[in-house]
């Protein structure tokens, strides 16, 4: 069987276990086919879960894959990186007995079938409307918008700053959770519908936004977020200090990352931190330790990621904030201070505990304290933002008429999550809004 899940060699294979045919049969037949199923409601893209599982049970794998891909153009990556225990599987009626249907695994089973059957054609482009739409950024959000816009019959051009599509799916998520092959296959599926791609073009730098607005009938901004922000402490420019995204990308693409030494310190506790931690460990670093200035409960990584990191032998240190990076020609350590969160504070912010400073030896430091906002880009695009988040209405229209936005660039804590599946849904929503806008004639 052809496998799309083999990781880059030194990083080892996929952590997802492929279900045996027996497990698939049992699992698919166990699904109750609930009416108005809670799993479907919990999925941000509202995949009709009971339907795709029922089709697996009847051996209709093409139909099953279609149900998934119809609702979610990112069905392949989502079957690998979605925090299913917080989404569909968390809502399954069997969850109460702690035995939810393994929806993510079954979804992967269906899509794996699709990946092996390259001649199967699920979707057709719609009848041409003669309208042209530009998409800025070909990550999950941009690709999803492109797929649906093509089905609506609009011509689509994707501009992407990188030489390959699928954004963080290609460059960001570690290969043992999402391989390059899967990310590439997923982008190809969208391109099959006939999409013009301008790779290596930075909108706002190489091409002006006004040129896009003049050339196209509508624009979708899906440029995601930026790199890891500066720690803002002395010594962070020393050799041996890494931006986590840069680090993961090099490792994923099989490029040189040099010798990490035996003591790797990772700062941060989100998705990126976990990927950096496990990646460093798999590259052979002996001790890999996460340092976080808050407690275990405040970690932003998903439960499954935390569990996975523990299994990979990662160590965790909570309530520690970095003060400076030590070393003269190369990093040798980090000075930390212990923190505490005052119990009565409304927005719990950690405060330093005086006199608790300590030195942690390190052969490499990886900063994974989140992603910065592309404020310069948004300025250049001439769209309004709030705290670096592109401002949109319910239809995902930005402050500029005819310009819509989707994905991580509109991620806002407590409002919208930064997840592949959310990016996919927003991409679909943006496509529907663009379609309504173009059909209303408002753009002429």
């Amino acid at each position, binding site marked *: 069987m052809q496998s799309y899940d083999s990781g880059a060699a030194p990083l080892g294979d996929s952590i997802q276990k492929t279900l045996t*045919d027996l497990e698939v049969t049992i699992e698919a037949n166990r699904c109750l086919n609930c009416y108005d199923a809670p799993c479907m409601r919990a999925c941000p893209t509202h995949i009709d879960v009971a339907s795709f599982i029922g089709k697996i049970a*009847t051996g*209709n794998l093409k139909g099953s894959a279609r149900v998934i891909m119809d609702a979610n153009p990112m069905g392949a990556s989502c079957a690998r990186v979605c925090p299913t225990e917080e989404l569909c599987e968390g809502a399954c009626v069997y969850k109460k007995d702690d035995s939810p249907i393994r929806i993510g695994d079954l979804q992967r089973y269906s899509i794996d079938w699709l990946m092996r059957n390259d001649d199967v054609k699920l979707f057709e482009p719609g009848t041409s409307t003669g309208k042209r739409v530009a998409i800025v950024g070909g990550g999950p959000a941009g690709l999803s918008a492109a797929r649906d816009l093509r089905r609506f019959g609009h011509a689509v051009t994707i501009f992407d700053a990188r030489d390959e599509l699928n954004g963080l799916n290609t460059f960001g998520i570690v290969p043992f959770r999402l391989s390059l092959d899967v990310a590439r296959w997923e982008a190809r599926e969208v391109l099959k519908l006939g999409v013009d791609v301008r790779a290596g073009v930075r909108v706002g730098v190489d091409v002006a936004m006004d040129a896009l607005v003049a050339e196209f009938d509508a624009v979708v901004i899906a440029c995601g977020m930026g790199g890891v922000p500066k720690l803002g402490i002395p010594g962070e420019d020393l050799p041996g200090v890494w931006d986590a995204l840069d680090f993961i990308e090099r490792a994923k693409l099989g490029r040189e990352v040099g010798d990490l030494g035996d003591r790797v310190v990772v700062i941060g506790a989100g998705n990126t931190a976990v990927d950096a931690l496990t990646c460093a460990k798999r590259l052979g670093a002996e001790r890999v330790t996460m340092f976080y200035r808050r407690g275990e409960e405040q970690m932003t990584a998903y439960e499954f990621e935390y569990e996975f990191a523990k299994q990979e032998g990662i160590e965790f240190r909570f309530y520690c904030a970095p003060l400076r990076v030590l070393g003269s020609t190369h990093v040798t350590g980090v000075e930390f201070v212990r923190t505490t969160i005052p119990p009565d504070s409304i927005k719990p912010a950690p405060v330093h505990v005086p006199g608790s400073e300590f030195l942690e030896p390190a052969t490499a430091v990886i900063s994974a304290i989140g992603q910065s906002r592309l404020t310069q880009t948004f300025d250049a695009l001439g769209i309004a933002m709030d705290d670096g988040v592109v401002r949109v209405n319910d239809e995902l229209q930005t402050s500029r008429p005819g310009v819509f936005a989707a994905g991580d660039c509109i991620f806002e804590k407590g409002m919208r999550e930064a997840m592949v599946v959310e990016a996919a849904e927003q991409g679909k929503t943006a496509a529907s809004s663009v379609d309504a806008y173009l059909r209303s004639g408002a753009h002429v």
Partner: protein
Amino acid sequence: MADLRSDLAGIKSPNPFWLASAPPTNSGYQVLRAFEAGWGGVVWKTLGDPIVNVTARFAGLNWKQNRLIGLNNIELITDRPLDVNLKEIRECKARFPDRAIVGSLMEVPDRAKWRELVKAVQDAGVDGFELNFGCPHGMSERGMGSAVGQQPDLVERVTSYAVEASEIPVIVKLTPNITDVRHTARAARRGGAHAVSMINTINSLMGVDLETWNPIPHVDGMSSHGGYCGPAVKPIALNMVNDCARDPEVGIPISGIGGVSNWQDALEFLLLGATNVQVCTAVMHHGFAIVEDMIDGLSNYLDARGLASLNEVIGASQNKITTWENLNLNYAIVAEIDQETCIHCSKCYIACEDAAHQCIERAVVDGVAMLRVDQDHCVGCNLCMMVCPVEDCIDMVRVENNLPPESWKERSARAALVSP
């Protein structure tokens, strides 16, 4: 995409999936919902003199985790006035002119009464009739349903009453509560029927409540036999459909009913000679939406095999059924266990050891049971493959014995020649 359009004796529908005459087709509201979901046709809940039903009415057979592998009912025909049903039939036909609406009828064997009922329902715009000669309980005590369907001469006579009054195709729905269904099917044809449908429900008694010793279901402590349907009856229905499909004296199209739950079941009915299928229990269990995968699955199956329409499957396996005496005695297969996928449960071992021919060898190595077939003694009965929980783990493989095909009929004829 394959053409799923279906034509049963002139009754056309966009797909071969009809709802059987039963609770799901009780009212216009339900039929409209069914059509919205995609059903190709419906056979309206049997019309006749409205009756009074009892409570309770149904009971289900569960098997381990699986609910409703069989369903038993003591419900009768429609309990709603004829004019209300006819008004709703008109409305449904107007909203969905491309779907088939068939009027199911039941009446005592009286020519004038049949004429009156046929004319009234025909005026409502139905595309055909289905004569309910099958209901095994209640109605039969009043001289209708299976009381008609169990007597070939009555089937023929009553069919002719309906056919002579009707200007549209007439289907006769047959009861399985009879020794050989071909006799009543032939009688329907002699009476002028354009098609037959089968099976209606099978006489059954669901069980006894071990707490109260009451029958299940019970009506104030008592019960009567009911009609059995659902997935468990499919093999019985397939056999009856195929018997009729191969019988030249029947010779009219067949609508297959009994345990159809998905597109795979439907295909089996078509391959064995049915022109379309009707469904009741699966909808009572899961709702109208199941037709979506029935259509999708069937269509994908036909496409994957490059088949353009249903005509290419209807009856395609029909003549692969014959009498036992014609089967090839020299065809030999034996079991083979795939060691890669075996989960070492030893189910095949104990089945063969206790109930077949003692030819699976079992060796426990490091606490794990290793299973191997002694192919010299295996008689190729299939039992181990059937009990194995892993799909395709036990395969029945052909043994080449270089013997020409020979049936029992041929062999006994040869023996008779040798020793006169």
